[in-house]
């Protein structure tokens, strides 16, 4: 069979393997193929580091990497941190039947699997084919990365014509483009046609996703019920099922769906967290505790660990201590204490988390009737509170306020809630909960006023009436001067008006001034991207003006 010759001497290779013996034999195989630039690391953490320092063309990773992250976690982190090139080939090496490893998300599959033992011939064949395919599809992937969906779509069609062999891979990319372009009918037509011919997992998932996007929840529900029946090991099916059941007001069923997925593969941090949250809502303390316990455990090797699962684990332990005398109190208290210390160690440099942890710790102390601990951690909390630079999230603010109120720390509680209401007035679920917690009647009234003004302004903006929009945004800003959304909306309206006006310098300067009021936005916040784009535009337009 004629394939373009791959020049392995030009390729940078990374081998991730915890057995030095096997790593050496892999290295030998690559040298036989002509490779000259080969790095070897023995665990997942070093692998991530290596990929930060160097862009590899080929990554050969063992799935099982001993105590460290496994190969699938490495792959997912490399994707999430954007450490792979569009044409980097990632080969997963497994000890047994490869399908057992399809446990990983469909979205983050390696380019090929290899089952031990294998020889150099088979490695070369897999690499040749994967590199050939990846090189051909890389231009499409690059466009998708740049969000040039329409162009990518066209390229998918051309590539299929020239290389019918990669028809399926192109269809899959095409589906991703159509979905992003919100061309739901076309996307649905594409996946339905594939599924009618053959129920291929990604295509089936795609049909359900589109039903969901089109808000046809009942049809989506039916599809994912079918899918979990037909492909009980494709775990995304359960995730979708749970999400839809939850939205249809079936939290008990949603919990069961997640439990089914976790039965099959417990090593999923996000899924465990979600299960814990739903179990909390369902008052299922046993599942809540075990889910957050597992989340903390699997988060140890993961870059996706967050303070949430630690805090939630201590909360669920607290609930167990409160609710029943029939538990091993000593053991549970020890577990909670060790969870706090792990949390404080892991997020040492984040005052927000230290603050949140101290509040939860004081709360826990009150449950165990340890007055000394309560006082100690309240004072620790106050100390950290002064150092917080970034906005506290909506959910976290509610959690902290609730604890502080229970601890009798009303003043601090109200001031945290006030800040949060100012920031998240446009989140109805949050406001509903805040309303129950606060004693300050004006707080919620003001937030409703801000919300009305902001909505009115947005309406004017969409009708291109920028003058009125700017007036309303300024009024909203007076009530909620620190609200990031209003600031960004305001700045955007000013930029728009400046484009219409010849003498636009004044609006641009006002936009610059307005944006300067954003001082506490964390780069991890999902509003940050919009903030930096608006800042960039303002500077650009000021230079031209």
């Amino acid at each position: 069979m004629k394939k373009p010759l791959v020049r392995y001497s030009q390729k940078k290779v990374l081998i991730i393997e915890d057995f030095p013996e096997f790593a050496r034999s892999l290295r030998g195989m690559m040298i036989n193929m002509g490779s000259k630039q080969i790095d070897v690391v023995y665990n997942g953490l070093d692998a991530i580091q290596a990929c930060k320092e160097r862009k590899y063309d080929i990554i050969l990773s063992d799935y099982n990497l001993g105590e460290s992250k496994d190969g699938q976690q490495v792959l997912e982190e490399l994707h999430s941190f954007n450490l792979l090139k569009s044409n980097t080939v990632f080969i997963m090496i497994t000890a047994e039947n490869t399908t057992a490893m399809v446990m990983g998300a469909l979205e983050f599959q390696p380019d090929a699997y290899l089952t031990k033992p294998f020889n150099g011939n088979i490695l070369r064949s897999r690499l040749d084919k994967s590199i050939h395919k990846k090189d051909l599809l890389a231009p499409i992937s690059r466009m998708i990365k740049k969000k040039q969906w329409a162009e990518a779509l066209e390229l998918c069609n051309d590539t299929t014509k020239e290389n019918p062999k990669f028809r399926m891979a192109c269809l899959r990319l095409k589906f991703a483009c159509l979905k992003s372009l919100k061309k739901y009918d076309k996307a649905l037509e594409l996946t339905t046609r594939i599924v009618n011919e053959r129920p291929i997992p990604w295509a089936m998932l795609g049909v359900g996703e589109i039903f969901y996007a089109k808000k046809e929840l009942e049809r989506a529900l039916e599809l994912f019920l079918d899918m979990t029946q037909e492909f009980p090991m494709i775990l995304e099916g359960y995730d979708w099922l749970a999400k839809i059941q939850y939205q249809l007001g079936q939290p008990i069923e949603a919990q069961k769906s997640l439990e089914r997925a976790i039965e099959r593969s417990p090593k999923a941090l996000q899924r465990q967290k979600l299960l814990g949250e739903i179990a909390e809502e369902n008052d299922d303390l046993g599942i809540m505790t075990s889910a957050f316990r597992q989340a903390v455990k699997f988060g140890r090797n993961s870059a996706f660990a967050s303070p949430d699962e630690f805090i939630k684990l201590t909360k669920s332990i607290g609930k167990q201590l409160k609710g029943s005398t029939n538990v091993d109190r000593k053991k549970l208290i020890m577990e909670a204490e060790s969870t706090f210390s792990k949390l404080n160690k892991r997020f040492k440099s984040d005052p927000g988390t230290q603050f949140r942890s101290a509040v939860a710790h004081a709360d826990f102390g009150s449950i165990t009737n340890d007055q000394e601990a309560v006082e100690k951690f309240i004072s620790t909390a106050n100390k950290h509170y002064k150092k917080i630079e970034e906005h506290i999230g909506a959910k976290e603010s509610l959690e902290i306020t609730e604890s502080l109120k229970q601890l009798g720390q009303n003043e601090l509680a109200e001031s945290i809630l006030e800040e949060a209401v100012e920031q998240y007035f446009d989140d109805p679920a949050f406001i509903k909960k805040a309303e129950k917690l606060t004693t300050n009647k004006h707080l919620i009234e003001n937030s409703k006023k801000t919300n009305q003004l902001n909505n009115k302004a947005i309406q004017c903006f969409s009708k291109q009436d920028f003058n009125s929009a700017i007036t309303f945004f300024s009024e909203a800003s007076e009530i909620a001067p620190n609200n990031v959304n209003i600031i960004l909306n305001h700045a955007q309206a000013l930029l728009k008006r400046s484009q219409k006006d010849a003498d636009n310098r004044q609006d641009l300067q006002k936009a610059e001034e307005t944006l300067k009021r954003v001082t506490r936005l964390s780069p991890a916040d999902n509003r940050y991207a919009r903030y930096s784009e608006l800042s960039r535009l303002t500077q650009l337009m000021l230079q031209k003006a």
Partner: protein
Amino acid sequence: MNKSENLFSTILASSAHDMKNSLGMLLNALNSILDALPEEHLKKSQSNIGIIQYESSRVSSSLMQLLSIYKIENNQLAFNPGYHNLYDFVEEQVLIHMPLIEARGFSCEIEIDESIEAVFDESLISMVISNVIGNAIRYAHSKIKITAEIGEYANITIYDNGPGYPAQMIEMAGDYIQGINNSTGSTGLGLFFAQKVAALHVHGEKSGSVSLQNGGPLGGGIFEIAIP
């Protein structure tokens, strides 16, 4: 399945897993000894090394089949069908055995249209086909030929020029456990596994199957798997 049988098969599965890992370590250790040996020693022990490598890969693939059967029976197997190019697929199955094919001086011909694809679970069918090729190298004299065609089913056929399958093996369609025959070294596992995997492949009313014959262009055994 009753409780004690269930427990037994769980122990069997975890033992198979453990044995497979041990075997992997053994092979790694052997390879590093081989790496350190001077060329002339290697040449002298060539055939013994070959035996160790071949037999351990046979044990390894048997253990893998056992594990997969366990998973199939306990609904733990992730069945993951996809479209695959048949030529590419078969070529890789041959490459798995390339060192031995070369060492024994076998010729292995692939006669497949390079543009045809079929829908199947790659890793499962790979275990089946690779196992059959391995057996063909073991029993046949010098030639293997593999063809694939698509019609109502995708048929992959493996011919060899060995003595052919024993008559009783060909006869007992569907009841492969009877194939256990200590005198010929056939445990029936490979065939049982192939049948299980074929049956997992279902499309509409049709499901996959395996058949054995003797004769054909090479005059030996003929193994055929039909995937709907």
